[in-house]
């Protein structure tokens, strides 16, 4: 394994590296990238090392009006320990906590989890349910915002153009102090260091009487990309979380499964994935 690397220290340095670089890839936590590089003797590309970048928009987690801005270099461990996220976005906190191991969580970044665009990305699945916005910085210094539902274009593929980098994600906070029913369910073949067989993130806003005001549900490891189950969310809107009928639960679960087009691989068959997805979808009301 051998490669060239450049480590910009600030935003200006980063933009310069992106402008001048012809063939490059970004590295941040390296928990995924190094595994890939170790298989190659020499790489044709330079690595732009983001690990030493000292720019608050990339590294910090900040509350802003209307929500929370999470820098793409925030680590899973920082997300697990963030009090605001734990309180307002439990689905994201649980997803970050379920990811790999404590050693990996210390270095793995939320930006990496998104940009690697794995269909089973844990934090990516939660961010989909939370209807986050991706803030993308271009080499010319301009930023654009893409809703996460449009960020993934295929397995390991995103809308990011050649001279672009994911700077931060914006998680909308619909209303403070709203009652929440929010979480992340991951089903795997073992408990630790697990890549999910299927996963499901849900973030449901309730009114005082437990009526569903707004629902966000996303599924992972079930399709070429993580998917937002829009029709399932619409279906349960207005229902009461506590008294929703068995029939509605099953109809909801069937709608969630309609977004799945899983594959059969070493971890599970497509049939099994759909069965599990149906059952965990139903289980979120219990």
């Amino acid at each position, binding site marked *: 394994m051998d*490669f060239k690397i450049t480590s910009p220290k600030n935003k200006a340095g980063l933009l310069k590296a992106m402008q001048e670089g012809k063939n490059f890839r970004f590295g941040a936590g390296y928990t995924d990238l190094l595994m890939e590089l170790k298989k190659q003797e020499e790489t044709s590309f330079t690595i732009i090392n983001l690990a030493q970048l000292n720019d608050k928009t990339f590294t910090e987690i900040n509350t802003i009006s209307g929500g929370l801005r999470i820098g793409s270099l925030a680590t899973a461990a920082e997300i697990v320990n963030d009090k605001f996220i734990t309180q307002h976005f439990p689905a994201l906190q649980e997803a970050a906590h379920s990811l790999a191991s404590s050693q990996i969580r210390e270095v793995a970044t939320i930006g990496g989890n998104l940009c690697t665009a794995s269909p089973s990305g844990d934090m990516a699945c939660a961010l989909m349910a939370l209807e986050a916005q991706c803030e993308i910085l271009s080499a010319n210094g301009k930023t654009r915002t893409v809703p996460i539902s449009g960020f993934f274009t295929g397995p390991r593929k995103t809308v990011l153009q050649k001279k672009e980098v994911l700077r931060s994600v914006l998680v909308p906070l619909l209303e403070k102090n709203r009652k929440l029913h929010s979480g992340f369910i991951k089903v795997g073949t073992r408990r630790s260091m697990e890549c999910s067989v299927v996963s499901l993130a849900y973030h449901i806003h309730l009114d005082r009487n437990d009526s569903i005001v707004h629902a966000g549900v996303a599924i992972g490891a079930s399709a070429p990309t993580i998917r937002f189950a829009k029709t399932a969310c619409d279906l349960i809107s207005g229902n009461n979380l506590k008294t929703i009928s068995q029939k509605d639960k099953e109809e909801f679960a069937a709608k969630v499964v309609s977004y799945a087009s899983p594959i059969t691989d070493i971890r599970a068959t497509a049939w099994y994935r759909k069965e599990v997805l149906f059952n965990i979808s139903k289980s979120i009301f219990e």
Partner: protein
Amino acid sequence: MKKKQKIAQRHKISFKLNSKDVSCDVKASAVLMDVIRDVLELKGTKPGCREGECGACTVLINGSPINSCLFLAINAEGKKITTIEGLTKEDGSLDIVQHELVQHGAVQCGFCTSGMAMSIKGLMNQHEKSNRGAGKNKKGQPSREEIKKHLEGNLCRCTGYVKIIDATEKLFVKEK
């Protein structure tokens, strides 16, 4: 005739290793584990799977556990790194973590032990950090489940983990 250009880009790095300043010259692609073992010649950090699964290479960076096999050495620049050698006190006496592992017979073949000890130390550091200035909201000792969750990145093929978890539990009882 033009020679095929080798990449061989070298980087000078400086960091604190077990409270001592060190600096060395490394390849861009060098991982921290190899630098610790082969350049700085501390062999307590073990190469297991080399892919972040087994945790035998766990070291602390600024007090938190990481897999040194998946960490680029150049990113250690300016950081504080602790290996198993740094856990032992200057006079050679064992750290409380090592002591409890020994007391509980939590070591068999020993290959996972240095990584395991570093992971447990990391848990103690995190616990202490989150309780610093927490006043009444201090976290109690971690449950067995929480200990297991924290140690999920450390594989042991001998002990069955029970004694390792016993030893960790004891550490937090002592801490109180």
